[in-house]
C-alpha cells in the first residue's frame, strides 16, 4: 500500500535527521565534558569532576586582555554594522533608484567572499600606507563582513514594512523625523536588536580577519589559536569554549525572543526562519 510506504519513508527520514543532529552536536557535547574533567589530557576516559579549569581562566591575565579587546571589537562592530546595515536595508526596501542592484550586490559580496580574501584585501593597503595594525583595523574588517548579515536580517523587517503606515503618519501632520521615531523605529526595533546581537556574536567568534589584522592587542579567537599549540593549556581552553557557547546560546535565545515578542505584539505571525534567511 502506498500509504504505509510513505510512512516508512517518513520514519527513515526522521531516523536520518536525528543521526544528523548527533553528528552536528558531537563536538559540542564534548566541550563541557572536557571542561569539567580533572585531567590535563583532552581524551577519554574521563576522570573526576572539577571546576579548576575555570579557576585557571580566572587567573590568566593575558586572557582577560583578550576578552576586553574582543568585547570592544564586537560591540563597535555590532553598532557600526547595524547602522550601516539599517540604512542600506531601508534604502533598498523603500526607494527605487538606478544602480540599486549592482551596488547592493557589491555590499553583500563579503557574504560569499572567502574571509582570507577580505583579510588580505585590507592588509595590503594598511601595509602600503604604513599604518599600524590595531583593534580598529580588526573592527574595519569585521564591519565589512557583518554589514551583509545585518542587511539580511533588517531587509525582511523593512520589506515587510507597509509604506502606507509612513504615509499615514505624514498625512496626519507628523514630520519625517517624527515619523521615523514614532512609527518606523518601534516597528523595526526587534530587527535592530537581533542584528546587534548577531553581529556581536559573529565578531566575537571571527578568527581569520582578526588573525591577519590584529596588532599587539589580540582578540579572543587569536588568543585561543595561540594557546591550542600548548597541550597543557587545552583543558582551560575547553572551559573557555564552554563559557562562550553558553553566552552565544543566551544571546541567540534573547535575539529570537525579542523578535517574537514584537511580532506577537503586532499580531504578525513570526516566520520560522527569522530574519536570517
Amino acid at each position, binding site marked *: 500500500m*502506498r500509504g504505509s510506504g*510513505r510512512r516508512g*519513508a*517518513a520514519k527513515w*527520514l526522521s531516523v536520518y*535527521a536525528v543521526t544528523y543532529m548527533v*553528528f*552536528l*552536536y*558531537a*563536538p*559540542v557535547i564534548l*566541550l563541557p565534558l572536557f571542561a569539567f574533567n580533572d585531567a590535563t589530557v583532552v*581524551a577519554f576516559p574521563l576522570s573526576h569532576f572539577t571546576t579548576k579549569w575555570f579557576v585557571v581562566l580566572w587567573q590568566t591575565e593575558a586572557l582577560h586582555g583578550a576578552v576586553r579587546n574582543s568585547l570592544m571589537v564586537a560591540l563597535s562592530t555590532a553598532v557600526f554594522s547595524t*547602522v*550601516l546595515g539599517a*540604512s*542600506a536595508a*531601508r*534604502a*533598498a526596501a*523603500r*526607494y527605487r533608484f538606478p544602480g*540599486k542592484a549592482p*551596488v*547592493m550586490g*557589491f*555590499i553583500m*559580496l563579503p*557574504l*560569499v*567572499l*572567502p*574571509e*582570507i580574501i*577580505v583579510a*588580505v*584585501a585590507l592588509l*595590503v*593597503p594598511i601595509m602600503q600606507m604604513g599604518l599600524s595594525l590595531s583593534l580598529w583595523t580588526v573592527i574595519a*574588517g569585521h564591519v*565589512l563582513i557583518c554589514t551583509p548579515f545585518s*542587511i539580511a536580517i533588517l531587509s525582511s523587517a523593512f520589506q515587510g514594512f507597509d509604506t502606507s503606515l509612513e504615509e499615514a503618519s505624514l498625512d496626519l501632520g507628523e514630520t519625517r523625523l517624527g515619523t521615523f521615531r514614532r512609527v518606523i523605529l518601534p516597528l523595526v526595533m526587534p530587527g535592530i536588536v537581533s542584528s546587534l546581537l548577531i553581529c556581536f*556574536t559573529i565578531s566575537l567568534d571571527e*578568527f*581569520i580577519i582578526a588573525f*591577519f589584522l590584529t596588532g599587539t592587542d589580540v582578540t579572543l*579567537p587569536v588568543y*585561543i*589559536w595561540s594557546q*591550542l599549540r600548548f597541550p597543557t593549556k587545552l583543558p582551560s581552553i575547553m572551559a573557555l*569554549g564552554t563559557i562562550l557557547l553558553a553566552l*552565544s*546560546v543566551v544571546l*541567540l535565545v534573547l535575539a*529570537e525572543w525579542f523578535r517574537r515578542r514584537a511580532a506577537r505584539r503586532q499580531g504578525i505571525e513570526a516566520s*520560522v*526562519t527569522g530574519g*536570517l*534567511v
Partner: protein
Amino acid sequence: MRMRLGLDREARRGLLLLSPTAGYALLMLAAPLVMVVTFSFWTQDYLDIDTTLTLNNYREAWSEPIYRVLMFRSLRISLIVTLATVLLAFPVAYFLSFHVTQRKALWLFLITVPFWTSYLIRVFLWKVILGFNGVLNTALLEVGFIEKPLTFILYNANAVVLTLAHAWAPFAILPIFVALEKIDRSLLEAAEDLGDGPLRRFVRVTLPLAMPGVIAATLIVLIPTVGDFITPRLVGGTEGLMIANMIQVQFGKANNAPLGAALAVSSMVIVAAVSLVIYLAGKKLGGKVE
C-alpha cells in the same frame, strides 16, 4: 530641480540613504581589492617593494608545482566538501519542511546552535574526536569493532572534508529549507492527482522547485571553504593543506606579499569561474535561480 541628473526626489533619497554603506564598501573593499590586484603585479625585494609591473608572480603561481598542487587540491576538497554538505543537508531540510509540523522553529534553532560555538574550538574538537587516541577510536576499540586505532581519519583530506561539512551544515540546510517551504503544496497534490507516484513527483516537481535553494547552498558553502585555512592546519596534516595556508605563509613567514596577492587573486578568479559555471548549470536545470 526635478530634472537634475534625471532623478526624482525618491531616487535621490534612496541614494543618499545608501551612500554611507556603499561608501564604506567602496573604501574598504573595492579600493583594497583593486590594490591587491595591483600589488600582485609588483615584486618583493627583501624589505622593499619593487613597483615595476611584472607578471612574474603569476608565472610562479601557475607554474611552480607546489602552488598548482595546492590550488587544485583546494578546489577538489572544496567541491567534495560542498557536494557532501549539500547531499547530507538536503534530507534534513526536506524532513524539516515536509514532516515536521510542530516546533519547526525549535528544530531550526537546534541546527544553528553548534554553528555559534567558537569555530576554532569546534575544529579542534574534531581533532580530539578523530585522533589516534581520540574519542572515535577509543569507542570503537572499546566495542571491539576494531583492533588497532584507525589512522586514515585524521591529518588528511578526509578529516578536512568531514570537519568542513560539519562547519557549514546550517548554511546548506537553511537555503534549501526556505526553497522547500516556498513550494505551494497544492502543486504536489496536482502532480499526484495527475498520476505521479512519490518518487516521480519528487523528481519532477519538488526537486526542480527546490533548485534555487540547492544552488544557493552550493555557492554559500563552496566559496568560503576554498579560503579556509584553520581546518587544514588543525586536522589536515601536510596532505590536507590548502591554498589559503600558502597565502597566509606568503603574507607571514615567507614575507612575499606580492606572491601571496597573486595567489589570492588567482584563487579568487578560479572560484568565481567555478561558481559561475555552477550558477549557470543550476539555472538551466531548475529554471529561475534567485
